[in-house]
Each structure stands twice: as structure tokens, then as C-alpha cells.
């Protein structure tokens, strides 16, 4: 396990959250430390996306805390959470379809006061395809390119942590591999990442640590390798092989 002397960048403590009367998350606990990729996997309906949304303040948190670098951001409205340093890429509806690629990136930089041009250049280096298509409407791009716009948009701010909700959903293997490479590059550049993934094997392969969620709560926790080798996890997701 990692040395827990360091403070987690992002922490969820005993989180109970849901929509209106129904509670979906029951006492969830998670952390993301510096320089790591944390994968959240679990069966359908486990509440993985919900966990991410509750960090963003998109759900009502009835109990528990969300801490960013030690500071509580529980139930902070989404657009303010972004200012505090959490960047988020939703699973669907993650680009402004009628805005151009460049305009999407510019919107990503909304909370940024300076250095926008510099960031744009950085994004175009990271995603060379997008530079070519920067004046094109984001809605006219392919799924994989759209995902890149979505991620680039989130990276326009110097966030403390990046949350990705199923970034490879519905993408071809080529794009999936590309996205995971980019994710590792982002981690190496100093931004820790929390990623919700349906494709458990690939996620655990790239991640440093992982959490397995079942029915709105924690089930397993460990490094990527530990989880891959875990019997029960294997049975749930990885085709039963040990």
C-alpha cells in the first residue's frame, strides 16, 4: 500500500448521497493521492458515476464529506467546485456540440484568468488531431476525437485532480489505447486522476490503485495488480481466470 503519511488530494469519507429521498451511496470511502491513477470499477448500478457526480455537488450529500487537499467541498455547487481545483469529464454530453473545437477548449478555460493561449498550445501538442480540426464543430467529430476534446477541455485549467467518467465507452480499441496512454501522460505530468471504468481489465492495467464498488459501497481496494489477482474480482469482471 502507499505510504499514507501523505495527505490525499481528493478524499471521500463515509459518503451517503442520493437523489431526493432515495439514497444511492452508502458510506463510501475513497482517496486519490498525488501522482496516481485510481480506477473505480464495479457492476452496473454499483454507483460509480454517482460517486463522481456527488464529488461535483450534482447530488445531495446527506452525510459524510468530500475533501479536496484537506478542505471540505461537500455539497459545493458544481461550477464552484471546478474553481477549487477539480476537473470533470462526464460520460455523455461532454462537448458543446455547436461550438468549435477551439471554442470548447476556451470554455474549458472559463475559470482561468491568464495563460489561456499557452494552455491551448499545450492541448494541441497533446492532441495533434484536434489542432487540425480546431475550427470544426465539436459535434461533427468522431467519437474518439470528441472524447479528446472533452478531455482537453477539462485540462485547460490547472486542476488538482481530474475525474473521468468512462472515457473509453463506445470507442474503438485504437482510441481506447490512445486515451489510456494520454491518461498516463497526464498523471506523469503531475495531475492525479480518478477514472470510472466499465472495462475493468484495461482500467486496472493502467491504474495504480483501484476500488471495487458494489451496491453503493466499498467492496475491494488495492493496487491494480492486487485487484487483478483477487479471485472475487476476477470472477466478477475478468472472465473467471485467476
Amino acid at each position, binding site marked *: 500500500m502507499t505510504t499514507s503519511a501523505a495527505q490525499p488530494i481528493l478524499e471521500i469519507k463515509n459518503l451517503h448521497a442520493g437523489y431526493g429521498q432515495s439514497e444511492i451511496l452508502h458510506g463510501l470511502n475513497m482517496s486519490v493521492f498525488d501522482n496516481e491513477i485510481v480506477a473505480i470499477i464495479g457492476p452496473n448500478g454499483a454507483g460509480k458515476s454517482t460517486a463522481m457526480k456527488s464529488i461535483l455537488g450534482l447530488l445531495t450529500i446527506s452525510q459524510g464529506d468530500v475533501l479536496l487537499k484537506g478542505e471540505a467541498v461537500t455539497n459545493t455547487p458544481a*461550477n464552484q467546485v*471546478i474553481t477549487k481545483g477539480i476537473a470533470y469529464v462526464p460520460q455523455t454530453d*461532454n462537448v*458543446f456540440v455547436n*461550438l468549435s473545437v477551439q471554442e470548447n477548449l476556451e470554455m474549458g478555460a*472559463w*475559470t482561468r484568468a491568464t495563460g489561456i493561449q499557452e494552455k491551448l498550445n499545450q492541448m494541441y501538442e497533446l492532441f495533434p488531431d484536434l489542432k487540425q480540426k480546431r475550427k470544426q464543430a465539436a459535434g461533427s467529430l468522431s467519437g474518439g476525437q470528441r472524447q479528446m476534446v472533452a478531455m482537453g477541455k477539462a485540462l485547460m485549467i490547472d486542476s488538482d485532480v481530474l475525474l473521468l467518467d468512462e472515457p473509453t465507452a463506445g470507442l474503438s480499441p485504437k482510441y481506447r489505447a490512445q486515451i489510456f496512454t494520454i491518461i498516463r501522460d497526464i498523471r506523469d505530468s503531475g495531475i492525479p486522476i480518478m477514472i470510472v471504468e466499465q472495462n475493468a481489465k484495461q482500467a486496472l492495467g493502467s491504474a495504480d490503485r483501484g476500488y471495487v464498488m458494489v451496491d453503493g459501497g466499498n467492496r475491494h481496494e488495492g493496487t491494480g495488480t492486487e485487484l487483478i489477482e483477487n479471485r472475487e474480482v476476477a470472477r466478477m469482471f475478468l472472465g473467471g481466470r485467476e
Partner: protein
Amino acid sequence: MWESFGFEFFNFYFIPGLVLGCIYALGAIGITLTFGILRFANFAHGEVMMTGTYLTWTFSMVFATMFGISLHPLLAAIPAIPATILLALFIDRYFYKPFRKSATIMVVIASFGMMLVVRSLVQVIWGPNQIVFVKGIAKPNEAVRDFTSSFDMMLLIPNKHFWIVAGTIIIMGLLVYLLGYTRIGKAMRAVSDSPDLANVTGIDVDYVMRATWIVGATCALAAGVFLSMDTQVLETTMGFRMLLPMFAAAILGGIGRPFGAVFGGLVIGLAEELSAYPWIGDTPLLSPGYKTGVAFAIMVFMLIVRPSGLFKGRTF
């Protein structure tokens, strides 16, 4: 040819249609922006337009009383701009915002109610009678008349029409700049695409909504002032009269597409005026009493055939 067809057609049908189209276009901009960004049909839009125009008249009256100078409506409109904006923001804050998280129908009913509230308020303060804004008969611009006469055509266009078309073009230009080149304009387009995504991108959606009201109210004021310049009178019914054509223009152009709304406004304005032209034979194609039905017919047609409008706006 000009004698028999062109003269009458251009001077009495086409140009009035164009002018009316400009007015519809400006009014429709506010409707389509509200529809696209705030996601509801604002029935009170016409009344805000009307109130702003009454305020313009009031400013010109006050100015005339204090300084003895009679201001042109366009100048008197300048102080009316912030007043109209404040009105629109006030209405949103106290009557629409409470319903942001409720079913859309609630805010639509509220806006329908506000339509009556605002109109009654104006009727209480200014009275229901027609007020003459610009006295006298507008004579055709002599320079244009003489110039076109030299080409064997004769265009009779009063100055007010030049102002209206020019004013509309200028506002269009400003709108292009705002939406395409400014941060807030792009944010408005972003929220129109997806308020949820804008929210998680860090955009203050409330701020964008306020900006939408500001832009919409300003365009509505322009529409109202141009209308009163054209008809030369003020009436408390002018808002409601314009409402249906403005909605029709917004739907025709595509909800959420401001330039679609402009196009829609021009089409409807022209269609309305040209419908009275004797295309076949001697009598008007459509009896002039039914002119106001043209906008409605176009709207229903669009709603059945292509609800997303000509420029593929939002469909709900």
C-alpha cells in the same frame, strides 16, 4: 414595367415587408435566446418590448419638458436601455427564477401571467389610449427618390425606414461579434447547447442567463422603438400583437439560433406584407384583414413539417 409592377410592389409591399421583418427579427432574437438558454417560451417578451418603448417616449417627454428639445426616438431610447434591462432582470429574478427547478410548464404559466401583469401596469401608469410618438406624415427621402428616378425607377422610402433597416444591420453586427468573438457570447452558446455541461465546466450558468436577458431585452427594446417609429404611435397592445409573429419567426429559424430567428423574422415580415399583393388578378391574394394570420400559418406549417426549424435548432 416599373410603372405597372415595380413601383407599387417595391414601395408599398416589399419595403414595408422588409421593415416589418426587421422588427420581427429583433424581437425574435430575444425569444429564441430565452427558449434556447432558459428553455422556455417567454410570453411576456412582447410586453417588455412595449414597456421599453413607453419608457423611451417618457424619456423624450421629460427631456422636452426640461430642455425644450424634442429628441428623436433613437436618442430617447438610450436611457431606456438600462431601464428595460432592469425590468427584464427583475421579472426573471422574482417571477421566473423560483421555477428553475420545477417543471417547465410552471414558468410558462408564470410568463403568461407576467404578460398580463406588465401590460396592466403600463395601462395603469400610461393609460390605454394610443399615444402619438412621432407627429406628422413621414415623407419619402428626396435624395433616394430623385436618385432612383434617374434610372427610371422610383423608390419612395421615408427616412424612418432607413433608420430601421440600418439599425437592424448594426445590431446584427454587434450580435455576430458578441456570440462569435466574446467570452460571454460563447458561453451563451455553450449553455444553449448544454446547461449541465456548462455547469460542470465551471461556467456560472446564472450569470449567463442574466446576460441572455440583457441581450434579449435590448433587442426587444430596439424592436419596439423601431415599431413605434414606423407606426408613429404607441399602444398598449403592441406587444401582444407582435408576440405571435415573433414566436413564429423563432420557430421558423430554429429555436436557439439567433440568426435563424433573424431570417425567420424577415421571411414572416415579407410574407405578411406580400400576402396582400394582388399576385393573381386585381384583388389581394389574401384579404388584408387576415395578414396577422400569415405568421401563424407559417408557424403551424413548420411545427408539423420540421419542428427543428430551417436552421436545425433545438427540438424539445
